[in-house]
């Protein structure tokens, strides 16, 4: 998800009938430039080389989102024709299709994805991407996968091997809810983490696009 303003000008996008390394390509109507859906980078046209600004996003279940944001709107296509009947778009534990998906994130030009099959076993993963300490919190019951900066007040937070994203302990004795990004107990109680851009992607597409080393653990 991106801000669609560039240098103060508003862009409108449409789907371009082509793929780049298996990934959708967008076209802006104002200049006809082509943009990668996965990176927000202009691939061709007069805006080639420009980047759209990433917006922090979360991939969570509708239930979780509405619990965290009770006033939120929910996008709905008006016609059932727009529905995809594939019910695999759910992050809950156990779907046979889990091996097809990764939870991807980006920090600047660095990109990394985390297989859902790995997150099933390891719901909290500490990592560093583009020089930024991050933590991935995954809740298979709630169907939530989120990525946070693990820096608060200039201090890097180190998480132990937490069995659950909703109660992850750090080395200072805090307990964090990594679904909400909030310390729920300990000296930092009430403090918040900053979210990072997150997307659900097909494993093969992510690997083809960003390269083999872009998937955690490979």
């Amino acid at each position, binding site marked *: *998800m*991106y*801000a*669609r*303003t560039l240098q103060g000008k*508003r*862009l*409108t*996008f*449409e*789907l371009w009938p082509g793929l780049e390394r298996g990934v*959708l390509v*967008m076209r802006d109507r104002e200049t006809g430039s082509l943009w990668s*859906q996965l990176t927000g980078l202009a691939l061709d046209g007069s805006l080639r080389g420009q980047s*759209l600004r990433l*917006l*922090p*996003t*979360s*991939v*969570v*279940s*509708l*239930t979780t*989102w*509405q619990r*965290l*944001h*009770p*006033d*939120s*709107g*929910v*996008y*709905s*296509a*008006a*016609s*059932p*024709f*727009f*529905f*995809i009947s*594939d*019910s695999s*778009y*759910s*992050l*809950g534990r156990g779907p046979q299709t889990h091996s097809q998906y990764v939870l991807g994130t980006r920090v600047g030009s660095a990109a990394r994805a985390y297989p859902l099959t790995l997150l099933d076993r390891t719901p909290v993963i500490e990592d560093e991407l583009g020089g930024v300490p991050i933590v991935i919190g995954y809740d298979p019951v709630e*169907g939530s996968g989120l990525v946070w900066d693990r820096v608060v007040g200039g201090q890097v937070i180190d998480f132990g091997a937490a069995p659950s994203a909703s109660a992850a302990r750090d080395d200072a004795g805090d307990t964090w809810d990594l679904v909400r990004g909030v310390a729920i107990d300990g000296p930092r109680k009430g403090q918040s983490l900053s979210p990072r851009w*997150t*997307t*659900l992607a097909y494993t093969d597409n992510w690997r083809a696009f960003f390269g083999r080393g872009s998937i955690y653990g490979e």
Partner: protein
Amino acid sequence: MSRSRTVRRSLLLAALVLVGAFAWRALAATHIAGPAATSPAGLDRQSAVIGVVVNGQSRAYPLRMLGAEVLDDELGGQPIVVTF
């Protein structure tokens, strides 16, 4: 061709255009549901959504409804493009 037949054909054509326009609008239109405790029709509450907060306003986009789509939207005064 008689005048009445021409008028009937014109009316039929106009009706077809109107029906087509309404059908297109119904297909193309989207709306933002909520803030509702209920989910959009046909959407399982465990379905995955991409959620975003911009300038204090929040919105969720069910992945099932996005599919291979590029969606221009505006949230918290910020034009955004939603893709999956």
